[in-house]
């Protein structure tokens, strides 16, 4: 691979992240945090 080229296509970055099961843990925690914030405010 040429080092000046991107290692992963930026267009695929979002797809790769969405396919990563780890991604859903912080996402769910973030949504729960927003609900909690609404409750305490």
């Amino acid at each position, binding site marked *: *691979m040429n*080092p000046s*080229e*991107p*290692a*992963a*296509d*930026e267009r695929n*970055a*979002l797809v*790769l*992240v969405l396919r*990563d099961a*780890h*991604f859903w*843990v*912080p*996402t769910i*925690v*973030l949504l*729960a*945090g*927003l609900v*909690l*914030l609404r*409750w*305490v*405010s």
Partner: protein
Amino acid sequence: MGELTGLQLANVAGESVSRDRIRVLQRLGVFCGIAAGAWLGAAEAPAKLVSAGLSPFLISFLMVVGVFLGRWSLPAALRGTAGIRTDIRNAPHLVIWAIIAGCLWSVANTLTIFAIRDLGLSIAFPLWNSNALIGILWGVLFFHELKDAGRGKWIAVLGGALLMFVGGILLARASARQMSPQAATRGMVAALGAGVLWGTMYIPYRKAYLSGMNPLSFVSFFTVGELCMMTALAVRYLGGFKELWLQIVAVGHLQFWLLAAGLVWVIGDIFQQYAVKYIGVSRGIPLSNSNQLWGLLWGALAFGEFRGWGHSAVAAAIYGSILMALGMAAISFSTAGKSEYGQWREAAHREQRRYGIDAQFVSSAMEGRASQTTSSSRWWDGLLVVVATAVFVWTAGLARLPAIALNWQVVCGLVTVGLALLAAATLFLWKLTRFN
């Protein structure tokens, strides 16, 4: 160069990295964790100067603006934005991870301000410091931390984290006796919720550093998520952009202290990022949670909160501090051995395969070295530093020191210790890794 297979990656990382290099990088991580604790604790000092009565959303928003300025200007000054571009080209997916981490931080930080309002800092602090236990859980589950570490290191890390937690509770109880005890359920839920959010935020941190991202690049995108989320929250809960602007203008004399709190916090967080990179979540976070100890030192000695405390409360504060120090020591001396380091390599290999990252980029970063040389500083790096400095100087010109009694000798002493730790950790990082 990018054609290396996973097995070769493991060999590159495993054979070329000497045992001495691993050991010295882990010492660097421990030192960064200790420096992080000092600076994260000091971040409370400017925020304490701000009189009560401001909206938690406004306080959090102004702190995030200070954080944003710090997170773009400090990396630009230390490494230049060219390095950030190189990192993003190699691992563009980490921009998304950094942004979600920033969103988690903003929501957690706002929750802590509600918790402080309802419970007081001293009770809320140890509750959200439970983030270390959440961090250890994710580190073990997702990143092979403590795998093959041996029973002794498990006991040291878990025992150390528990000692620090119990020490924190003791400190809280010592302080709580000095105020009207109105432990509201709402405040406790907010503090524990912040702990879960902050503990989960370390999933993106660790993922970034196993993938070869430089901590200074990661924080630059992290703060975009922070600012966007915080702006959305402030606009939503304060009643629109106009109301937010009016409230910012109305607290012109306090803006500097909140921006400064954000900047001091950034310095601590940068060290925390390096600690997570070199010793992992399960050790880095408990060490940087020693910020509670520093917060107590600032509160008790600089702000005179010990005045009027009973003998038993002072004793509890001292015992709590000793427990926290023992916990720190237990974790500091339980750095990962060769076999656990091999497990980290496996986790890095998984990330490299999953996202198609250049293998050399990943292995160089694990060794604390840059895989590619980046071009030197550009004019806009200097501009970023100048703009951030101008904002701080301008708001400092408008600032007034609130009428609060301070022990200036202690303030000077704590500032000197903080600056000494900053200088030593920066030098250590530069000599060993050139901030990689």
